[in-house]
């Protein structure tokens, strides 16, 4: 399988995603510079974390104008897999590929810590190896992760099956106490209705090796790999 990791000026988790996909999971990975207008034939695009354009103006607000984003949109509309992580989430919101917006964290501070997230859908390419209700322990690291849903609210998103991950207790209880940043409905990750574009604030690439505190992040990448392999088998 071939993955593409987009590099915007100010991306800083690009190396990490590349490392986990290539060195840990043995996949083909290419960096894609933000000014390129080809996605190099990849099967899945990752928009990594960081501070694209310094997060100046608003996180993700400038990156969406990068030439590569037009190609990412085309790719997504044709069913290609797109995963936005942290700043990548913010960019997907700004570019309209996913609904909603981000506010600054409730406490107005940057927050870097492990959190628990409960899996809400196990039928997407990004979570197919997980089980609904499974709790993953994955770190977050952001200043703007206080998700605000579009018109229709959290209920509307739920109805359309767009809620992917929620902040929870270690046992999977979704309550305000376990909400680190004020995000509506404890939302930590969402996807589009078709399920091929997803975004999450937690960083799966930060917990995908045995030397890390958990390896729960592997599940996200392995789901994508399993999905792509399945698709390939079906096609052939």
């Amino acid at each position, binding site marked *: 399988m071939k993955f593409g990791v987009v590099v915007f000026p100010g991306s800083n988790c690009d190396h990490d995603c590349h490392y986990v996909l290539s060195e840990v999971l043995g996949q083909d990975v290419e960096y894609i510079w933000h000014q390129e207008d080809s996605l190099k034939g990849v099967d899945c695009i990752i928009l990594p974390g960081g501070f694209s354009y310094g997060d100046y103006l608003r996180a993700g607000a400038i990156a969406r104008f990068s030439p590569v984003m037009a190609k990412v949109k085309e790719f997504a509309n044709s069913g290609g897999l797109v995963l936005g992580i942290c700043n990548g989430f913010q960019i997907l919101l700004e570019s309209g590929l996913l609904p909603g917006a981000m506010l600054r964290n409730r406490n107005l501070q*940057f927050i870097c810590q492990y959190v628990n997230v409960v899996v809400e859908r196990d039928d997407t390419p990004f979570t197919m190896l997980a089980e609904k209700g499974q709790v993953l322990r994955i770190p977050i690291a952001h200043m703007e992760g206080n998700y605000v849903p579009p018109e229709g609210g959290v209920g509307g998103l739920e109805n359309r099956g767009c809620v992917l991950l929620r902040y929870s207790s270690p046992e999977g209880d979704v309550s305000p106490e376990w909400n680190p940043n004020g995000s509506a409905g404890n939302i930590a990750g969402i996807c589009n209705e078709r399920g091929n574009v997803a975004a999450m604030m937690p960083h799966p690439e930060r917990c995908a090796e045995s030397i890390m505190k958990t390896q729960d992040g592997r599940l996200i990448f392995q789901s994508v790999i399993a999905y792509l392999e399945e698709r390939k088998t079906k096609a052939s």
Partner: protein
Amino acid sequence: MQGQDITKELIRDHGLNEEEYQKILNILGREPTLTELGIFSVMWSEHCSYKSSRTLLATLPTKAPWVIQGPGENAGVIALDDTWALVFKMESHNHPSYIEPKQGAATGVGGILRDIFTMGARPIASMDSLRFGDLDNPHNRYLLDGVVEGIAWYGNCIGVPTVAGEVSFNPCYDGNPLVNAFNLGVVKKDKIFKAQATGIGNPVIYVGSKTGRDGIHGATMASEEFSEDSQEKRPTVQVGDPFTEKLLLEACLEVFQHDWVLGIQDMGAAGLTCSSSEMAAHGGTGVEIDLELVPQREEGMTPYEIMLSESQERMLLVARKGTEDKVISVFKKWGLDAVVIGRVSGDGMLRVKVGSETVAEIPAQALTDDTPCYMRPQKDPGKRRRIRDNHSLFWLKEKGDISDPTYALKALISHPTVASKEGIWRQYDHMVRINTVVLPGSDAAVVRIKGTNKAVALSCDCNPHYCFLNPYEGAKQAVAEAARNVACSGAMPKAITNCLNFGNPEKPEVMWEFAQAVKGMGDACRTLETPVTGGNVSFYNETNGKGIMPTPTIGMVGILENLEWVVTQGFKTEGDLVAVLGETKGHMGGSLYNWSLQGVLEGGPPPVDLEKEHRLHQLLVELAKNKLISSAHDTSEGGLAVCLSECCISSPDLLGAEIMLDEIELETIPLLFGEDQGRVVISYLPANHDDIADLCERHQIPINTIGEVSGSTLSIQTRDHHLNLPVATLRELWRTSLFNLMHWEIPAE
């Protein structure tokens, strides 16, 4: 060259004395221009010239077989293995952080990062040593909040994790907070870059941000005492742009992959002046630049302003003739300015022109090596070293009797210096680059080096109370503790960098403190085989004539030969035996108990036996290598009781311990809270006891088994007291204290 009259007032306003001005006249053989006066002023400032400290610093040990680059370059370098090297340095940004905490601290991080990637290395880990006045004073909370926000903003944006640090408190830092920023990077041994202008005729290229009027005379400001009106100096604090620095970092590392660049220097303190003169002097050449070519973001800047600007995120580099277009194209790709502004010359001069007019012409050596140098008078202040202070125990909700060891332990575990710094480090991205194997909160941070099976262990330490009571012993202790922390993780301490924060060196007592601290640090570094590879000196940490306690902060780098050997501080398994390595004698002088609970700082600090300390570190590495221990934690502030509490609190399962100290013939308070040095609490499988005891004997380190890991309560029996505290209670006190003091939201965990 002509211009403004150089009056006595003007000379004095530039921080130059009569003798120094006379020296300038002798060097130039004429009166300086205003631009030249400004250049001399910054280059001969304490901050840039080390004129009060140079002679003493020369006594420090700087060599070892693994040291590739000692002091004198942008950062020190040691070997990691046959291919890779570690580049690291620590620098202070105290004065700017007092005036404008967020930008002051942020640009401190930006500056140290540039020092590292200027050498060709990719920065992979930061840490910060911070000191503030007590947090019952709202201004100190404002400073802490701003400093932490600044470090987080800059470090997080550029994507270099802040993995460790220390924060401590004393009223002496009320008007003089300390912000010491450390960074470490990795580089291939054959790809190290230096600050030198070589090859006559080669192009001198300016890259990075445009030059503005910010930070003019920052270096001179850092060489003065503060007074009430220091807030007026706000405009001399630079403003950071971490996004531009991220671009600069990536562009520099891309350019370095080719053989185009011959030398590079970042524009930190004294900006273009310092970088151009240092490169000329180190290269044994000269540099000629034309200020009309310098990218500027403000109109009408004078040569004086352009030369002295401390605008951030700028570099000066010398490239091989003919490669300038390639160099420039890489910077353009990253959206940065890159302009040839001059040439390397052969006449040893720093020549500054505006078009065809020469506005400054100074021998480069006179600015870098032949600067004034003072052996300032020293005076031992004698035995007057004591402070008695009325203490409010402001951080405690529950008042009690401090002679009750249970209450005392609760008070110490929640003291801001001991309590969890989670509220601070959760604001730092401490995981980006996915190398942080041991997360913040342990004795040392452990960062793996990708592509090898090794890791580095980092710690920064200094106990200002010890240094105040005895700067020689205090500095020795700072090195020993930093090394011990690193060794507890299983890594061998290899080298240090430092930030020597002191008061006004023109006061003989301060100069004596400095000399004593340098001597203590030198002795410790020699015995522990951790040479000094660089660092900085920050004098004039005084406001309204009141100086700080001597604070020689040590940044220690250790190498963990195999990532699998890593040891952390928390108890791991029920039934493990608990033992203390080293001797417990109940030394209370300078202890946190005496200071924070009784308001008394007097007596001598706990002495350090350096030979024994060295053997202890080797023992710890052996124990880790042979996988004999489950945990190791250094005993420091708050003594054995705090150390044992931390072993429980840091336990993944919040395990408790049954501890029997009734055979030790000491009063309970000194037994539990004395701060004897050279001690480490370890836990291990009972089956490993004999092997461990053998190793201890071989290294001549006493081991005393004091109990076992058990249950969820920390229970300590002394001759006349019994303590019994649920680990959950201890953890709650320890974890929430700083959050509460800072009025920060406490996250669920």
